[in-house]
Every structure is written in C-alpha cells, then in structure tokens.
C-alpha cells in the first residue's frame, strides 16, 4: 500500500529530523526538474509531479536509513548533489518521489599528497576541492564547465568529463575508492588501491549509475601536480572539419596527450571566436605537465598541424581570454535566464562519440538533417573536445527560437526531434549516443539500441541492485 505525501514526510522527519526535510513549494518545484526542462521552468511552468520532500542528508547512515525505508515502502528516490544535470536525470517523474540531496555532506576528509589522493564527501563542490588543492600545488585535473557548481557525488554518478581530459582522462580514470549505499540500505566501501585484478572492477557499477543503482556518499580521487607555468596554448583557424579531425587523430595516434584538444566548426566557432575566426573552424590545443613533456607535446603538435597548409596560427591571447571565461557561474546562469525569457531563444547540447573513421560522417549528416528538418533553428554547430587514441567525441550545439508554442511544448516541438536525429545517426554509424552527460530520462528510448545484446548485462544490474525499482525511476532504464 503506498504512503501518501504527509505520511512520507512524517516518517522522513522521524529518521533525519525536521530541519533536514524541506517541503516549501518553491523548493519542491525547483527540485522537480533539472536543466533539460529549463525553458518551461523559466516561464514558471512545472510539468513534473512535485516531490513529497527534499531531504538533506547529513551522513551515510541517514542515506542508508532513508533508502531502506523507501525500499520497503516503494518510494521513488532521486539522488542529487550539485543540481547541474542536463538530461532530466533529476526529474521527479513518479508521484511523491523524495529528492535525496547530499550537498550538506561537503567535508574534504583527507588530502594525501604522498599517495596522490584526495577523499571527499559527495557534497563537496569540485571548485572547493580544486581551490584547496591548488593552494598546495596540486590539481584534480577535472574541469567540466559546471565546475563552479557541480559536486563530487553527481560528477561520479554521471561519468563526467572535463576540459583537460585528453591528458587526465574522465572521472572514471580519476576515481580510486568509493563509498556507496544501495537500495536495501547496504553500505559498501571500496578501498583505495592503485589497481587490482581481484574479479571485475566493481567501481564501474557505481561510476555512471546516475542514481539508478546506488547513492554515492564518498569519493577518493587521484591528484596531480599543478604546473600551469609549463602550459603551452596553441590556436589555429582552418577551413574544414575533416582536416581538423585528421589532425586530432594524428596527434593522438602518434602518442601525444595534450590536456586540451578542441575543434570547433564555423557555426559553434562564430559564437565564441567571431572576433578572429570568421567562417572558419578553430583548433585549440594545450600542452600541460612537466616542462619537458609539455614543450615536446607542443612542438610535435606544431609539426603535425604544419602539414596542413590551410591551418593559420592564431595569437594565443585570443584563446587565453576565452578560456578564462569558459566555466559557468551563477551570474552566467542568471543572465541566460532573462535572455531566454525575453528572446524566446534557447540552446541545448547533445554529446556523442565515435571512432575516427565515422566521426566526420556523423557530423556532416546530423548538421545537414537538422538544418533541413527542424524549424526555427538559429544556430547549429558542434565541436570535438575529448579525444582518445581510437576516436573522439562530438558536442552538438543547437539553438532555436520557440515559436507559436507553449513553454511546456518546447521539448516536444524542438528538443526531442533534434536529439532523435543525432542519436539515431550516431547509433546507426556505430557510435555512442551519450559521451559524458549521462542518459538521464530523455535518451532512455534508445538505450536498447545503444547496447544491443549487451543490454542483458545492464538490465541485470538493475534487477540485482534495485529489485523494487525505487532508485531514480526512468533514468537510464525506461520507466516501469
């Protein structure tokens, strides 16, 4: 028998105390969505059921107690920390859900320079950890655009990646040990060791689970020496994306690891670089690390680029200023809000990945189809920002005017059709439909296509770890 809202709130108060249970309507509204539904939210329209409460957990035992209760009573739990998710992962699509917010668990537990590790609770803002490390000459190496706002728990749960990943890797390469709580209340701790072969790597059940399998309460990450004085920034304009992909591939295949390797097409480029790159692609590299390595990496990149005469070197001061202002902060988000409501123009992104031999074809096909098939587009472009030896990602950027359409219909009229084109073309070509934002709730229709026969492994994890289906229903796995 399901509990009603008042009963849910009352039991939660018994477990964590009234101070930790929030039921103010404004908070509940804001907690029913994430950035995917920001157009309707900005217009004061809330289409999702309001959660019964937002609970701020103080410690792992709180999490365990609440999950146990939810498991027994069939209450949908939405785990949350920084609230910067972009794919609907935080939407409370089930009636009387409970948002379990870990941002009060924000202690940096230990910074261990000898072992090159740092341990934090899930609610630690990445910027806070990064600032603390830089004070003593270290860095996490992790710099997603959401860095000023995002917290460790969510960053691990979404398999996030940052601007310097081509050298440092994604979050999965940085995580050492973890503590996570499962739906039955079981608290599990994975110890910090450099590597082991003691069975499959179970950390990967947790990393990327998007709250659909467990609740992350503590994270240990590797740290790196911070040597910004050795950074070498390189920027070029060029004519064709295809050339840009070739250069990226050669840099990676030859064994170089710049921390930043970004290729912008003219449309996306115009948005950022119109003051020096008119109608051209822009290629940006940063070489980082110990002095000799950074210098050698930069020198090698220059040689590779020089083989393509269409590339013209750009004064790095253009790139430096742009780079300094790349990350979001509260002011940017607030400014964006008012511009969207006034102009009815909104943009969002779809990030995919593929092997080298498919990436340009996916890029060209998607751009062409979007221009032809989706109305009212004001910007369609993309950039590659995370490269690997065997391929790269593509970050499609799509802006449109919302015309003759209620706020709550914007997603149906524009955003889903856009994602459908990009997801389907990518999967058809053998690529992945989700490079680093997570599946959320809006790419679930294609999850089986994404996995093919290996869906068996993914779905069995859900059956094993969340048999009652209380963990963030509708995320990764289609709603029951």
């Amino acid at each position: 028998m399901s509990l009603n809202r008042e009963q849910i709130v009352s039991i939660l108060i018994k477990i964590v105390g009234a101070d930790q249970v929030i039921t103010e309507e404004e908070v509940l509204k804001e907690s029913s969505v994430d950035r995917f539904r920001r157009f309707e939210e900005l217009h004061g329209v809330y289409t999702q059921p309001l959660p019964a409460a937002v609970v701020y957990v103080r410690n792992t035992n709180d999490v365990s107690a609440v999950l146990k209760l939810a498991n027994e009573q069939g209450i949908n739990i939405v785990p949350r920390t920084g609230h910067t998710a972009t794919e609907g992962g935080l939407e409370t699509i089930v009636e009387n859900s409970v948002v379990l917010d870990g941002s009060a668990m924000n202690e940096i537990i230990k910074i261990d320079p000898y072992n090159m590790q740092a341990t934090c609770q899930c609610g630690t803002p990445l910027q806070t950890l990064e600032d603390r490390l830089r004070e003593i000459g270290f860095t996490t190496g992790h710099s997603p655009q959401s860095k000023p706002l995002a917290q460790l728990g969510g960053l691990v749960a979404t398999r996030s990646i940052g601007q310097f990943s081509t050298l440092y890797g994604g979050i999965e390469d940085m995580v050492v040990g973890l503590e996570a709580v499962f739906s039955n209340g079981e608290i599990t701790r994975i110890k910090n060791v450099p590597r082991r072969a003691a069975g499959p790597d179970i950390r990967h059940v947790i990393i990327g689970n998007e709250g659909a399998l467990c609740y992350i309460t503590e994270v240990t990450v590797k740290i790196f020496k911070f040597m910004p004085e050795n950074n070498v920034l390189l920027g070029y304009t060029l004519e064709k994306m295809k050339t840009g992909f070739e250069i990226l591939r050669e840099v990676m295949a030859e064994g170089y690891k710049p921390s930043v390797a970004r290729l912008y097409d003219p449309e996306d480029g115009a948005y950022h670089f119109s003051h020096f790159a008119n109608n051209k692609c822009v290629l940006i590299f940063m070489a980082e690390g110990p002095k000799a390595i950074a210098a050698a990496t930069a020198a090698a990149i220059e040689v590779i680029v020089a083989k393509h005469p269409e590339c013209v070197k750009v004064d790095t001061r253009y790139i430096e200023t742009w780079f300094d202002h790349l990350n979001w902060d509260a002011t940017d988000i607030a400014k964006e809000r008012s511009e969207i409501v006034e102009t009815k123009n909104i943009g969002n992104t779809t990030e995919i990945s593929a092997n080298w031999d498919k990436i340009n074809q996916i890029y060209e096909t998607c751009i062409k189809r979007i221009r032809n098939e989706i109305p009212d587009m004001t910007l369609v472009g993309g950039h590659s920002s995370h490269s690997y030896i065997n391929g790269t990602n593509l970050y499609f950027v799509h802006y449109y005017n919302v015309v003759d359409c209620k706020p709550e219909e914007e997603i149906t009229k524009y955003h889903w059709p856009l994602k459908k084109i990009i997801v389907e073309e990518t999967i058809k070509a053998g690529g992945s439909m989700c490079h680093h934002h997570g599946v959320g709730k809006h790419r679930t229709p294609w999850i089986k296509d994404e996995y093919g026969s290996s869906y068996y492994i993914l779905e069995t994890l859900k059956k094993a770890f969340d048999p009652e289906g209380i963990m963030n229903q509708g995320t990764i796995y289609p709603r029951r």
Partner: protein
Amino acid sequence: MNVLVCFKVVPDLDQLSGSDWVVDGCSRVETRFVKRMINPYDESALELALKMADQARGSGVTLGLNSLTIADSGANLTLKSLRALGYQEAVRIEADRDLEFAPEDVAALIAAYVLSTDPLELIMMGRQSGVGDNAKTPLLIAELLRWPCITQVIAVEKDAAGTYLVTAMADEGVVTRIIEPPCVLAIGNAPSSTLRVPTLRAIKEQSAIAVKTYAAAELISTSPTLPVNPGAELLTLEVVNRNRGGLIIEGADATEKAQILYQSYLKGWLAEL
C-alpha cells in the same frame, strides 16, 4: 526608411582580467583579444525599433527600418544578422581613423549620411557606448540636423496617425510625449530590450547580399556645410583602483559567517550611524 538605428560593436570589457588593463603609448588598452558585443544601449535601440515595427504592423502601418554602424568589415556579420531580423537596410561607414574619443566626428559622419538619404522620421541610438563613454553623439547629431532630441528613452511606439509615443526618464519622473517626427531618440535603461535572434534560414538568405559601405571621406565631402565642432582631446588614461583589500570572513556555514560579520564589524558600524 522611417527609422535609422545607429549602433556600435564594442569589446566585452568585463572579460579583461586585472593584468590586461595596460595603457599603451597611444592612450589605448589592447582589447583585440576579447569577444565583441553590440553596445548594450544600442542593442536596446535595435530591439525597441523591431518591437515598434511589430506593433505598427499590428495596426496596419509599415515601418521601414535601417541600421548603421561605423566600423571595419568585421561588423558585416552583425549587419547581415540585422537584415535577417527585419531591418530593410543595414549599412556600414568605413572610417579612416580611430574615432573612440571623437564624438563630434562620429556625429558629423552620421549626419552626412542622413542628409544624403531620403528623409527619416526617427534616429535612435544608445545614450553612450563603452570605451569612449562620451555620452554626446545623439545630442550632437540633433544639433547638426537641427532636430529635437529626447534622452533616456525607455519605450517608443508609432501611432496610426503618423505620430510617435515616446516614454522617457527625466529628473521629474517618467515623461510620456506624443511627438511629430523628426526626432533623435537617445535610449537609456529600457527594460526587456534584449535583441532577438535570427533564424539560420533568414541569415542564409542575407549572406549573399553585400553590405552597403560608405567611405568616411566621401560622405563628408557630400556635406561640406556641416559645422565642424572641436571636441575634447584625450591626454592620458589611467587604471582606476577601487581595491579595498576584501577581507573574507570564514565560518562553518552561512549562519556562523553572518554572526562573525555582525558581532565583529557590522554591529559597531551600525551603532555609529
């Protein structure tokens, strides 16, 4: 054309960090490396004109919009975007030197252009623009053309009767006037005036059509009787230092920080009031 909106593309100065503020030998700061934007007050003027055209169309009146900037060819993209948004014309004057602190020269160029085209009803532009911050150009244009000028405009509409309803801030309050054109409008803090965004389709239609460009010297030669007013000459520039030290109050949470702030500082300061 009924309405001419003049605008300036400026560097986004908030993107310069402390160490970038270095004044060179010519009394300028290097701003090449930051991205550019339409001067916010001019952006308001551009959007207000579009809103006015929408509103007029609703009453069956067609309003011809023209836009103008004095810039190098880097501004062509913005001019084509304005055409994509519904400006019937968008023209560029190519100046032969740096006009940052020369509003008299800017006004002369714009007045010469206006005198060389068909009669206009309104000239709209922002009250001032970043870098120069002269706050003189609209006033000088009004004097050169012998037109009236209303400043601190926050809204404008066209009537079916051919007159304009102009709302402006003044020292005495908010003034609403019904006026006969012609008139110069200097736009102030107009709410809800973010420039709308053109669709790709509309931009594509405009991209092949060249931007009409005028050389400054030629324009001036068409209006030899325009009075030449001397301006102010910039001698030096220095960085304004507003640094007070910024002591950061630490604490476990917001409540504790507020308590420290109050007990150690604010309480005493308030007592002295």
